[in-house]
Structure formats: C-alpha cells, structure tokens
C-alpha cells in the first residue's frame, strides 16, 4: 500500500448537490473502515453540512448528520473552515460539537501531512 492518509474537501452543502455531499461522506466512512486515516474538511458551502439539528429527511434528502456521526465514531477527523462559516453567518455554537474549526491558512500543512486529497 503506497498511501495511508486521505484528505477530503467537501465544498457543497446538504441541499442542491446532496448526492455529492452524501457520496463524499460515504466514501470517507468506507475508507476509514478499510484502515486509512481520513480527514474531512468542510469548506465553502460544505460548512452547512455541520449545522446542528438539521433534518433534510423532511424533504426526502439523506441525513448527512448521521454520516458525520459515523465518520467521527470511525475515528475520522472533522475540520470546518472558519472563514466559510463567517461568510455564511454561522456561529461556532451552531455546528456539531465534534468539529474543529480551522483557518484557510491551516490547509497547506494539512495537504503536506496527507498522501492524497479528493474534492467533492
């Protein structure tokens, strides 16, 4: 095995391109389950995925919060970009407790510390 760690950027929210977000989270969880380290970065509209209490099942969309919970329980690292939160008026208290808030400038070292990255 050449690669051990994967960085996934999630750039879309729960709505509109829900399949992309759901697919990103499924892939993240499967990859964790198969023994690779996975870090998930929610950035741009992706930060909306981390909002507490959302229930998109009311409009027939999958619950990404369940997938995020699975991700954390499987040992994944969840990061949310502060600038993207601020641009959308979302406070830290409104996102799930397990998320760590980082700055854009923290992304470069993250890239250096992972073998691969995927963008959804």
């Amino acid at each position, binding site marked *: 095995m050449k690669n051990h760690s994967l960085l996934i950027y999630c750039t879309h929210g729960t709505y509109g391109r829900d399949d992309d977000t759901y697919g990103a989270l499924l892939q993240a969880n499967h990859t964790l389950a198969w023994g690779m380290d996975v870090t998930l970065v929610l950035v741009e509209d992706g930060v909306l995925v981390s909002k507490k209490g959302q229930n998109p099942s009311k409009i027939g969309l999958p619950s990404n919060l369940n997938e995020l919970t699975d991700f954390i329980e499987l040992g994944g690292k969840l990061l949310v970009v502060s600038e993207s939160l601020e641009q959308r008026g979302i406070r830290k208290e409104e996102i799930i407790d397990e998320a760590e808030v980082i700055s854009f400038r923290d992304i470069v070292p993250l890239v250096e510390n992972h073998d*691969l990255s995927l963008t959804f």
Partner: protein
Amino acid sequence: METGDDDMNNPDTEKPSKVLTILLIKGPYVSEAADIAFQTALKAKQMGYIVNVFLYLDGTWNSHLTGDKNYNNPGDWLKRLIRKEIQVTLCERCSNARDLTEENIIKGVKIAGSTKLIDYLRDSDKVLTFGG
C-alpha cells in the same frame, strides 16, 4: 491536448509505470469535466502511466452514452479508454440509484463497490478529481 488513437502506442518513457487514478463525479454535458478527465486519462496512458478511472455519483452517467452522436460525445472518449485497456469502473451504489446496469452502459466498463476506489487510492502515485 493531442490524444488521437495513433498517439497511444508509443509511451514516452521506459521507466517503471506509475499509477494514476482519475475520479470523475460529474455527468456529460453539464461541464467539461468528463471530456477533460477522459482526455487526461488517454494522455497519461500515452506517457506510460497505468490509469484507473472511477466514475462516481453523477459521473456514472457518462457510461450510459452508448450511441453515436454528430456532436461532442464523452461516450466516444470513454470507448477509447476501454480500447486502450484503461480500467474504467462504475460505483455500484451510484449505478443502482440511476438504474445503470451492465446491459445499458458502454461495454467493457465494470461495476464495482466503492471499496474498489479505495484499492485504487491506496496504490496510486497520483489521484485527480474532476468535477469537484
């Protein structure tokens, strides 16, 4: 990018092959992602890479372009990939969601679980995402 069939038989290098995996998550005609992904795959093959293409989410729709068209057709690029023995795989779950089966997709494209992508990721030297 020159990617005609005739160009694919003379790899630029005799070095041991590196592995490139291309992840495509956009369907045809919504953007240039599919066209660029497939042309990149062909060019990489020409350069001596072992190339894997994984069609994920709406990227799976590209495999459904089985017919001829008198305009740009990403399905034609996909057929070229198959002819060049590039492994092209569809995500099984995404395919099921879109009613894509081995009967209604381009011949030679395989359907497999997402663990196939993990295998690709583990063993690749380079990974490119198109459509993210």
